[in-house]
């Protein structure tokens, strides 16, 4: 099938270093002595623990239930006994802890009851629920709950389903090997997703440095008699970024402010699709994933690893060299250095790279920016990174937003080419987190202000109501008295003259009369004032809501940045001086 290719601007071509880890077939990592399965393994809410210490679990048994729609379930990777549900070091640059289920495998590796879904006959909602409960999340590294992306937008037809097999990060080969070895299951998974989204066209994008994977996927597509286009895309980092791949395959540009579904495109990673197929067809939830173990190791290879396997056990499989000084998770462009090997393999773990001084030489010293614009030339989002850098450095955060800092995907191309060796991404992360922190503070302040104003208004209203009540009571009393006076007057004179001012009514009568008039006026005034007060309070409430103009995405981003800020705080990073977190905790490879 002829497929017109588009291109995205910018990008870089670092050494790919992919060949060492594709020499051997995917291996199956042995079961470790303990598994530490974090309950929070997706964007959104952490799964709720469903097991207690001492409990026996079967392989694939649900141990963490999805917390609402924007969450994903977690399962026991093997059969065994739950030792604890406790805080354990997270697979995160911060090295903070996260609630994890500790399982001691019994060695039988016995499945709990598996419940395949007849996805062809079930309604789509049911299938999406099943995916959520099988813990299917984006395995490209973002771990976004897949079911949430599979609900078609109401008004927009999904024209293109883009399947991401580009794998543009250097060193990483897990998707390559998956497509080589499990192409047919992956394509079957794509078929399910296409059904769910009612997508008109399926485009499978694979970088052209993976000819074996392209051939395998083409064979699988042909074998299943499908009309999917398997497209070889030019190898250029970050071609595997969702937005870049969508651009290359469809020509559509998804800005940061919009979702791809609004433009009729949805994008999934190949590994995600594969796990979805296993989950629906065989009832096997996501309890393992393929992880590339490469870099400064004696045996680089891809492994099918149980989620929860401690990284120390995992990296031992590759036999890291003696001079290994760090372990990276993810690729060298966007990954991070692991603070501890006690952390487990999680769903986001796509690649572990043993680092050494030879592989990743020390950073040359940072020089001042000379505004050469090399960063702008390679920015895939066509930003002006050096401008963002100036403003971030000067803490002029409003300007960074004017220059679209939130369109930055932190791909690292700018830092990669900078002749002054400025860690630009670090400055951008700093600026973003500062902005989020300020938004949060502002939100909190607005909320407090609104609360205060509401309380004031309420007290005011209560006062008014009290006055109103009193006025009403007084008026009623006065009216009562007036009738009494009138009665006595008419009894005396036979005419209601008492109401005429020029008259000289009895003292009681006059007093009652003026009191009556005053009361009526006060009553009216009080009522009006109370109404106005209520209106004002209402307005204040609305105003408070208006200042809080966060979209759900922004709110989500804020939540996501909490973790990032924590990381920054832990590494004591004030961007002008790049933090010097030593990686010795991750240093020993034994």
């Amino acid at each position, binding site marked *: 099938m002829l497929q017109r290719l588009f291109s995205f601007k910018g990008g870089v071509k670092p050494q790919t270093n992919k060949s060492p880890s594709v020499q051997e077939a995917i291996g199956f990592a042995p079961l470790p002595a303990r598994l530490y399965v974090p309950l929070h393994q997706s964007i959104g809410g952490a799964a709720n623990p469903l097991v207690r210490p001492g409990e026996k679990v079967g392989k694939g048994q649900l141990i963490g239930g999805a917390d609402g729609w924007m969450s994903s379930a977690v399962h026991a990777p093997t059969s065994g006994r739950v030792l604890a549900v406790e805080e354990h070091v997270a697979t995160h640059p911060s090295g903070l802890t996260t609630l994890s289920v500790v399982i001691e495998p019994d060695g039988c590796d016995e499945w709990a009851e598996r419940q395949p879904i007849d996805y062809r006959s079930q309604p789509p909602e049911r299938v999406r629920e099943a995916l959520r409960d099988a813990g299917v999340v984006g395995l490209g590294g973002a771990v976004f709950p897949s079911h949430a992306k599979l609900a078609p937008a109401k008004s927009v037809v999904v024209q293109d389903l883009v399947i991401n097999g580009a794998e543009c990060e250097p060193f990483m080969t897990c998707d390559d090997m998956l497509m080589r070895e499990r192409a047919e299951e992956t394509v079957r998974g794509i078929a399910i997703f296409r059904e769910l989204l009612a997508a008109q066209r399926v485009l499978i994008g694979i970088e052209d440095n993976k000819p074996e994977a392209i051939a395998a996927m083409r064979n699988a597509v042909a074998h299943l008699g499908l009309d999917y286009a398997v497209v070889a895309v030019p190898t250029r980092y970050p071609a595997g970024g969702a937005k870049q791949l969508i651009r290359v395959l469809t020509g559509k540009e998804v800005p940061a402010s919009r979702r791809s579904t609004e433009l009729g495109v949805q994008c999934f990673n190949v590994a995600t699709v594969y796990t979805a197929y296993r989950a629906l067809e065989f009832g096997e939830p996501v309890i393992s994933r393929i992880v590339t173990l490469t870099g400064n190791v004696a045996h680089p290879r891809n492994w099918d690893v149980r989620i929860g396997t401690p990284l120390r056990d995992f990296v031992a499989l590759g036999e890291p060299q003696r001079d290994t000084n760090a372990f990276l998770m993810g690729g060298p462009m966007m990954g991070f250095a692991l603070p501890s090997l006690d952390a487990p393999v999680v769903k986001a773990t796509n690649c572990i790279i043993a680092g050494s001084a030879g592989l990743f030489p020390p950073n040359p010293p940072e020089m001042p920016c000379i505004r*050469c614009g090399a960063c702008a030339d390679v920015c895939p989002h066509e930003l002006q990174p050096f401008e963002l850098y100036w403003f971030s450095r000067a803490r002029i955060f409003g300007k960074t937003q004017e220059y*679209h800092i939130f369109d930055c995907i932190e791909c690292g191309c700018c830092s990669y080419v900078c*002749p002054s*060796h400025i860690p630009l991404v670090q400055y951008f992360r700093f600026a973003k987190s500062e902005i989020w922190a300020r938004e949060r503070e502002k939100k909190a302040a607005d909320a407090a202000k609104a609360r205060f104003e509401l309380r004031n208004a309420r007290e005011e209203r209560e006062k008014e109501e009290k006055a109103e009540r009193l006025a009403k009571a007084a008026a009623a009393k006065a009216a009562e008295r007036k009738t009494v006076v009138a009665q006595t007057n008419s009894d005396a004179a036979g005419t209601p003259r008492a109401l005429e001012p020029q008259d000289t009514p009895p003292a009681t009568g006059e007093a009652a009369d003026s009191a009556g008039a005053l009361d009526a006026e006060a009553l009216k005034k009080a009522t009006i004032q109370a109404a106005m007060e209520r209106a004002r309070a209402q307005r204040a409430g609305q105003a408070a809501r208006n200042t809080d103009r966060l979209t759900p995405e922004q709110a989500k981003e804020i939540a996501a940045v909490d973790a990032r800020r924590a990381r920054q705080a832990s590494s004591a990073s004030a961007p002008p001086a790049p933090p010097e977190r030593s990686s010795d905790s991750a240093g020993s490879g034994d």
Partner: protein
Amino acid sequence: MDFSTPPYLLLERTSVRRIMLQVLIGLLPGIAAYVWLIGPIILFQLLLATIAALSGEALMLRLRNRPMAMFLTDGSAVVTAWLVALTVPPMAPWWLVVVGSLFAIVIAKHLYGGLGQNPFNPAMVAFAACIVSFPALMSQWPVIGLQLSLREQFELVAGLAPRIDVMSGATPLDAIKTALKVSEGSVDVPTLLATQEVFGNFAGRGWEWVTTGYLLGGLWLWQRKVIGWQAPLAFIAGLSLLAAALWAWQPERFANPLFHLFSGGAMLGAFFIVTDPVSGCTTAKGRLVFGFAAGVLAYVIRVFAGYPDGVAFAVLLMNLCVPLIDMYTQPPIFGMKKER
């Protein structure tokens, strides 16, 4: 490797020093032609300027408490020094080159914050300062064909020999301007170009090959992607379009565009001055605007104003406009372009 923040891979073959080194290499063809034309004295001036600039750099780094080794070896001061030396007459007294280089480094560069911070091109600031302060010395260009030995040249530069006006003549640009003024309309430019000793095949005698050298070096820099094409091309376009228009209108009063392109500082300006990233525009569109306007201004100043050449003033004037131009030429970002 500092493992605090990705990316952990960096492009190996790029650094400020490497860029500066390539700019210096780009100047070599022009310098070679200069040596052939005038003699090795220019090499002495280049050395003098380099020493002065590096001394000024070292002094300022010390005063500003900045890392010495890193900045002294980044090559930026040497580039500035060479540009200063190449814009000052070759037989100017030694102190003029020293003063120019120091002015460029100390005043125009470090007082604004050092590398990457200067809003004006340091070499052009130095040129402007020198031509305003020492107009006579700055216009003593050697008469071509005047054969001086290196020793005689050196004595002139060192101030050991008396400076004789005979040894210096007007630049080709000056020659046209003066001749037109003196003759009051009785001479036309084509005749001048054809008859006067100072003019060569297409521009100033001899100097046309020096400027051709700059052009070659500039093209090499462009091919190596050290400089972009926008600013040089726009500069050349601005200068030659205006020159062509006036030449077409009154060929007897205005020289042809080719003459203008290969005279004075046009080629040096196009490839080594308006391409300065620090003091120039950063957006592609901005570089076009910057270069074009600088070219137009350079022509206007060199033809209608009192100075022999207008490149330096044109560039300085445009340096002033850089923030404004950059602000109004921000390119649309990914996903925010207008639907085609």
